[in-house]
């Protein structure tokens, strides 16, 4: 897959998964409340063949709560924070699986990880390929693709 279309394809997959699994749709309206950075969680997923790609997803807790409530149909007080945090790994897993299906060559996919907010993949030799900001119901998801 050419780098120029990677983010376009990833955005398509994210949009599909968010709408079909979580019933949340991409919005054209810029959020007026993006939440504070201390509520952000960063998930990474490594895809590899000859080269290694790292997908990074940054979501705030409010978006994560919304996703899990819609996905499970449960009330907020029925889900604890750890369940919600771990539940988003499944989102990353499904996005990753659908994304690698778009590659012509077979890519191996590692298990999703939650990383420290202070960690920067660039310090481990990753270089930024592309990044974008997606808006969902007044919340922002930041997405980056990096390669090694």
């Amino acid at each position: 897959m050419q780098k120029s279309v990677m983010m376009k394809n990833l955005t398509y997959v994210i949009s599909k998964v968010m709408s079909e699994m979580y019933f949340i749709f991409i919005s054209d309206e810029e959020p007026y409340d993006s939440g504070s950075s201390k509520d952000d969680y960063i998930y990474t997923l490594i895809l590899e063949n000859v080269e290694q790609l790292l997908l990074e997803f940054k979501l705030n807790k409010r978006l994560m709560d919304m996703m899990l409530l819609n996905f499970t149909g449960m009330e907020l007080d029925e889900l604890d924070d750890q369940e919600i945090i771990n539940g988003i790994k499944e989102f990353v897993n499904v996005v990753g699986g659908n994304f690698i299906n778009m590659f012509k060559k077979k890519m191996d996919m590692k298990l999703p990880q939650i990383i420290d907010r202070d960690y920067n993949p660039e310090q481990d030799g990753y270089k930024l390929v592309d990044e974008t900001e997606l808006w969902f119901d007044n919340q922002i998801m930041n997405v980056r693709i990096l390669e090694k």
Partner: protein
Amino acid sequence: MAINILVVDDAPTMRKIIIKTINISGDYAGKIFEAGNGIEALDILEENWLDLILTDLNMPEMDGMELINNIKNNPDFAKLPIIVISSRGRKDIKDDEQWSLITQYLTKPFHPEQLRDIIFSVIGEEYAKVSDDEESDICDF
């Protein structure tokens, strides 16, 4: 006759969704067991009678294909139907031999009705008589 089902997925929320779908799609489920990886699944299989396994592929400790290979290599369990529920594409299944071990394949994300229909296609039509009330529960899910 109720069937015993094992749901294998490392995501607890996904297991909850699958079990919820099974429960509201009919009265065919007897006991429903859960496992977070292939090793836990094999432990449950050793100790309980199972009629159907639903499994993810990408899991820690022991992934889905290794689990399936272990099951099918055991003559006691070789005929157990296995439905794979995974975000990985069908091209992730290496060859025809691996494909032959899988009864059905469902790609994530999926609609609950798709899961219900695939389960019924495996367990047989006698379980597929869903009442109007149960059908509306599926649509509301």
